[in-house]
Structure formats: structure tokens, C-alpha cells
């Protein structure tokens, strides 16, 4: 595996990542979500052609802990073969972003508490590495003792100690022939000192990169910024940095601005579940238009951020003399959904509870988010990341996007 930093803009950087499999892609990069190895709703055979950058996925080893899936993945020869996703990067992230919150519960020395298919249980090191090795991921995160920022100091210190010990233990159990694919976890939650200590310890280990944990758990945005900064300051520049738990556009920009290279995000799926389409502008040069509250057709870029399809009242649109909206979700979008289907059709599917609605929305939302990541990379290459980030966050604020917790709730259209 090779990782090379190619361009910088502030602390943000564009890198090229070349995996042992030969797959190459540019960072910062989005890892698409999978469950038990497969996308949640996107047909697996459509994944390759979804977008030029749709090549990297996240999966969680916790889904593969028990039989029969544990045996099945081992027999298949790894998660790529199991899910028929050869040609993709599969990155093992311990935390299941779609799963339950991390509660900061007691961990034993042997492992931390995770949600599995048989309920919440302690996952031990041997078991974790057994699953990781059976899955043969391109990159994998060491077993974390991840706690939220509000745990007592003593628990936080313990989590840093555990995480460091477990990193060493995981490294000792990794399969030599798979090479160095470990992303060493950095925790530290509520304390900047602990965060620095955790990063320092991880930095000395022989790893492919690092995974910053303990984020997306209700922490204050400014505090998060300090934690990212403090941690990354202790990490070598030439190794990969991943963060889990941060996925909204603002969080992505904050993380990238601090120097993160890889993020797994459920943001597209969260919108899909709420019957929302991702429509935020991606190009700085286009002047901002007012929110598209009455669904006037607009040129590609100036559409409101994530308007709600489910809330369009089709009856009034047809019988009240209103127009039926036969435009795609985003005019000019080249995704499968936008090239073929109209808002009114997708609305019909949503109103009829047809699963195809989720499929079509998720395809579009994933595409749009991959375009967002591409726009981020372009801005870094042009050394305009700061401007891009400022422009993006201010236009989102102007459109009334509120940030509640870690996922922005979009103000709906009617």
C-alpha cells in the first residue's frame, strides 16, 4: 500500500492512495456504507458504474462475528469475494454507523462493548482479529475503546490505555501476508491531553495510518476542531488519516480542513430514509439563488439544499392547476436516477411506499456526495479549500440549514 500527499491547502491535503490490490484513488475520499458486505439499497451490480469514484466501501466486522456469516466469509475467502465486490476497496471500521450509539459503557481489558446481531456484547481481541483476518479487508481499524466526551476522566484515561494496548495486540495478530493495512485508533474524547497522548502512542506504531475515534457523539463543534487538530499534530504527515462518526457536509469540511483523508458517511442514506434528495450546490462560481421552495425549475446549481420530496402535495399540483414537476432531482446531474426519472415519478414511488424510491434516491444522494468530495479535492488542488469551505457553510446557513446534533435537519419546503 502506498499513500502520497500530492497537494495541500492549509491543513487539508489531496493524496493518492494505492492499495495492495492495485486499486488507486484520490483522497479525501468517501467510503460508502455497506451492511453485511453489501450496499443497503443500491443494487450491487450498479455500484461500479454509479460514479467514477464509487470504488470504496466501509464495512463493519461486527456484522461478521457470528456464524453462519463468520464461517461463510471465511469460506468465501474474504469479504470482497463474499459480496462480489472485487475491484472495490473494503475498509473495516469497527463502529457501525447505522447502529446504536456508543454509550461509553464499561469495557473490560479484553474488549469493548459493541452491538452485534445477537445483542450488545463484549468483543474480544482474538475474536475481532479472527474476523478481520477472515474478511481480508484492504484497510482495517484496530479494536477501539471508544467513549463519548462526557465520560469521567478516569474512564477516558482507561480508554486511551486500552486502545493503545489493543492496537499492539491487533498488530501482533494481523496476517503477515496481508501486509501493513492497519489504521491505528486514536481516542481521547473529552480531554485534549488524553487525545494528544493517544495520538503520540499510536504514532510510534508500525501502521498504515490512523483512525480518529470518539467523534460524532454529541460533542461541541469547536471542541471537535481542537481535538482533530491536537491529534493530527502528533501524527506523521505521510500516513493516512481516517475518522469515523463524522458524515454531514459540515463535518466533512471540518475534518478535511484538519487533515483527514478518509471518511465513512451515512449522510446520503440518512437523507434517503427521510425521503430527501441531496441538491446542494457544488460550484462556488454560481451565484446563490433563493431556496427552491415552490419547485420552480432552476438551472443545476442553485437549488435548495435537500428539499423534501415526500412533502410535495401532488394533488394540489395536478388539480389546482399547478405544474407537475417532470424535472429530475437535480437538473444536469449525471447520476442514473436523474438521467432517467422525474421528481413526480419518485414522489409517486414514495407515496406508494415502493422500495424503488429508496433505491433511486440513494443512487442520486451517493452520486451527489461523491461529487461533493470531488469538489473538495479540486478546491484543495487549487489551494482554495478555505474559500470553498467558507462559501459552502455560509450558503447552507443562508438557506436555513440547521445543525441539530451531527446531522443537519433541512428546513422543508412547505
Amino acid at each position: 500500500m502506498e499513500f502520497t500527499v500530492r497537494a495541500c491547502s492549509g491543513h487539508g491535503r489531496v493524496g493518492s492512495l494505492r492499495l495492495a490490490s492495485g486499486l488507486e484513488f484520490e483522497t479525501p475520499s468517501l467510503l460508502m456504507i455497506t451492511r453485511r458486505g453489501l450496499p443497503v439499497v443500491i443494487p450491487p451490480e450498479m455500484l461500479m458504474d454509479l460514479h467514477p469514484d464509487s470504488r470504496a466501501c466501509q464495512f463493519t466486522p461486527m456484522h461478521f462475528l457470528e456464524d453462519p456469516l463468520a464461517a461463510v466469509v471465511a469460506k468465501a475467502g474474504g469479504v470482497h469475494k463474499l459480496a462480489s465486490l472485487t475491484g472495490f476497496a473494503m475498509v473495516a471500521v469497527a463502529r457501525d454507523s447505522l447502529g446504536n450509539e456508543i454509550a461509553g459503557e464499561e469495557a473490560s481489558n479484553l474488549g469493548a462493548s459493541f452491538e452485534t446481531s445477537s445483542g450488545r456484547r463484549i468483543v474480544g481481541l482474538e475474536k475481532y482479529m479472527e474476523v478481520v483476518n477472515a474478511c481480508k479487508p484492504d484497510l482495517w481499524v484496530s479494536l477501539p475503546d471508544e467513549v463519548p466526551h462526557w465520560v469521567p476522566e478516569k474512564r477516558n484515561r482507561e480508554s486511551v490505555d486500552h486502545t493503545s494496548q489493543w492496537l499492539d495486540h491487533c498488530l501482533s495478530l494481523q496476517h503477515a501476508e496481508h501486509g501493513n493495512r492497519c489504521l491505528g485508533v486514536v481516542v481521547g474524547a473529552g480531554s485534549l491531553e488524553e487525545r494528544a497522548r493517544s495520538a503520540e502512542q499510536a504514532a510510534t506504531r508500525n501502521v498504515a495510518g490512523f483512525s480518529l475515534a470518539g467523534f460524532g457523539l454529541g460533542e461541541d463543534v469547536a471542541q471537535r476542531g481542537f481535538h482533530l487538530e491536537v491529534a493530527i499534530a502528533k501524527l506523521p504527515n505521510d500516513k493516512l488519516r481516517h475518522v469515523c462518526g463524522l458524515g454531514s457536509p459540515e463535518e466533512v469540511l471540518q475534518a478535511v480542513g484538519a487533515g483527514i483523508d478518509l471518511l465513512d458517511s451515512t449522510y446520503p442514506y440518512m437523507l434517503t430514509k427521510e425521503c430527501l434528495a441531496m441538491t446542494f450546490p457544488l460550484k462556488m462560481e454560481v451565484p446563490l439563488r433563493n431556496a427552491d421552495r415552490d419547485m420552480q425549475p432552476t438551472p443545476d446549481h442553485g437549488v435548495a439544499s435537500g428539499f423534501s420530496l415526500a412533502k410535495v402535495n401532488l394533488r394540489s399540483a395536478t388539480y389546482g392547476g399547478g405544474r407537475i414537476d417532470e424535472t429530475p432531482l437535480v437538473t444536469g446531474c449525471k447520476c442514473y436516477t436523474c438521467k432517467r426519472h422525474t421528481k413526480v415519478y419518485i414522489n409517486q414511488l414514495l407515496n406508494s411506499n415502493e422500495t424503488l424510491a429508496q433505491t433511486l434516491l440513494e443512487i442520486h444522494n451517493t452520486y451527489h456526495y461523491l461529487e461533493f468530495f470531488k469538489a473538495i479535492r479540486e478546491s484543495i488542488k487549487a489551494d482554495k479549500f478555505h474559500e470553498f469551505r467558507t462559501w459552502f457553510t455560509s450558503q447552507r446557513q443562508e438557506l436555513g440549514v440547521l445543525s441539530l446534533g451531527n446531522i443537519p435537519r433541512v428546513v422543508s419546503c412547505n
Partner: protein
Amino acid sequence: MLGISPSMALRFEVLARHNRARASRLTLPHYEALTPLFMPVGTQGTIKGLTNDQLEDLDCQIILGNTYHLALRPGADLLDTIGGLHKFMNWPRALLTDSGGFQMVSLLHLADITEEGVTFQSPVDGKPMLLTPEDSIQIQNKIGADIIMALDDVVKTTTTGPRVEEAMYRTLRWIDRCIAAHSRPHEQNLFGIVQGGLDPQLRDICLEGLVARNLPGYAIGGLAGGEGKDAFWRVVAQCTAGLPEDKPRYVMGIGFPLDIVVCTALGADMYDCVYPTRTARFGSALVSEGVLRLTHAAMATDYRPLDSSCTCMVCKRYTRAYLHTLVTKEAMGSQLVSYHNISHMMQLSRNLHSSILEGRFPEFVQSFLQKQFPKGDVPDWVCNAMDVAGIDISMCRIPQSA
């Protein structure tokens, strides 16, 4: 007054025969289809989660839409404004809509049939409403499918007594109203539906009446409702014998592969059913040997594909064991099984067409039955039907050696 249907917007060419079975080309306004064929049911403009590309990859030729559901949502007028269901869905191939009557009777509270039409309670506000033959055809004209179905008076096959006869005669009276109401006879094909329950005499009267109307195609209705298999095949045999050679014959509501093979042997061309996608949602896969229950514990260690002879995306990529772990836990599980099941039905359609075309239909039927009944226990009704169809299946009644 007898309505003569000027509706003809299709061409039906029988390319090859084996006794009663036919392989044909059915040219419709939107698509040139090959029969025999199975039509997946799309209810509201989509087949359970499959994209148009997937449906085309699977070789779906005609898709069925439910008029009742479409009229409720998004509504016939919206579809009309947009230019029809094809445009709304962006489906480039053929569509068929049913009349809406069956759904109402089966889904709605206090649905009742009078000479005027089907009366029911509106599911929106509970008000009494009426669907007449004219209404049904007008709605279907707006939806714009290649084939539209007449509103018929359909009774359960288990019904006996004068109601069956009443329904048959009413169906004949209603076909004239449907013909009169049909405003797009050169773009949409109105199919009549043969009723008459399990009574051969009633069926005969209905056949005669519908054939005299010179419709572009005919359906055999009122089956697939709990009648015994013996009664079922006899009605199909009688109807196919009584329908014109040069027009398509559609047996409604049939989806079990065995039933489709038998009906094809007896001379039918088109079938529809929710069965393949519905059974997928319960974790059941259609395979050559029958039905594979993926939830079964034995599947957890079965590393074969669903069906060794299937070339679909699912069978190329995934094992039974993996699918077993998915079906009850991830939506993607039943999605993949749905995909395979549709593929199975499309492959069956192709096999029927090509085996008849290539003069090896009996061999196909024999091979099909041997796989489904390796112990030789082919049901009597199948044997009797194949007798009438003139296909020798005596070798299928001997147990296959291990």
C-alpha cells in the same frame, strides 16, 4: 347490440407449433415480444424495487400495472397530462393494465357488483363510489398501456349456483360497453376475459360471445382462486380450444412454473402473477427443482448458487449460504432473491418459446418434469393435461436414478 371491436393495435404471428402449444411473435405498439411469456406485476409503476435497467437486463417484455392503484395514486388525469404510464415510468417496452375490478372486489370493504358496475367505498373518504365499464376503459385509455383489460364480473371459482351464470352474461354485456367506451383502439388493445366459472356450458357461451366481438386478444379469467387443479386445467383446455388460433391467449393470475408449462402445452401464450416477487419476500427462491426455502437452517452451509442452471447476476455472484444470512436481516436479501425469481420466470419464458420454435418442446417438458419430480410422482392432473396436449411424459413417472 353486438359491438364489433375495431381495436387492433397488435400483430400476432405464430412462428411454430407443437400440437396445441405455440411459439409466437406479439408485436405491440411499444415492443415486439416473443411468447409464451410471463409478465411480472408492477402494481404502482414499479416491480418491487427493481430498476428499469434491471428489468431490461432480465428481459422483461411486458409489465403489468394495476389500474385501481394507479387511479388512486398518482391518478389517471396526472398520467394523462404526462402522456401515459410509459412516459411516467420511463419504461420503453410494453405495458398491460388490468381493469381495476378484481382489486376492488378483493381489497375493498363492501365492494359489490351491480349491472351498472362495481360499487365500493372510497378508500380515501369512505363515500360510496362506482366503477363502471366505461370508467375502467377511460382510466385505462389515460394510462396508455399497450394492452387493456375489459371490466368483467369475476366470481370466485369456488362459487356455485346462479351467480356464476349471472356473472358470465354480465361480462358479455359489459364487453360491449367497454368496446363502445374505448377511445384509442388503434393504440391500445382491448382484451376480453372469458368467464363462466368451472361450468363448461357457461364457458362455451362466453367463448362464443367474445369471439364474435373480434377482439385483438383474449384472457381466460376466473381461475387461480382455489379451484382444484383438475378443474383448472380442464377450463384452460376448453378455452384455448375455443379461442381463435391467430390471437394471443392470456391466462390471468398464473405464476407457478408447473402451471405455466401445462397451460403452454394446452395452447396459452401469456401469464401474470405476483408470486415470484411475493415469495421472494419470504425468502423463497424459484429453482429448477421447485422452491428453495433460504431461511432453512441447511442453507447456512450450502455454498452453491441458488440454481446451478441459472445465469442471473445473483446466481453468478452469491451463494445460498450468504443469501441465507441476508434474507431475514437485510432488505438487500429479499431484493436479490426477487431479482433471481424474476430471472427464473424470464428464463422459463425463453425456454418455452425456443423449445417450441426449435421443435423440442416435448423434450423440454420432460426435462422440466423430471427435475421437479425426481421421484416420478408427477401429479395426476398434469398427466391428464399432457395427455390432452399430446405430450408423452411416461418417462417422467419413473423415479430418476440417483
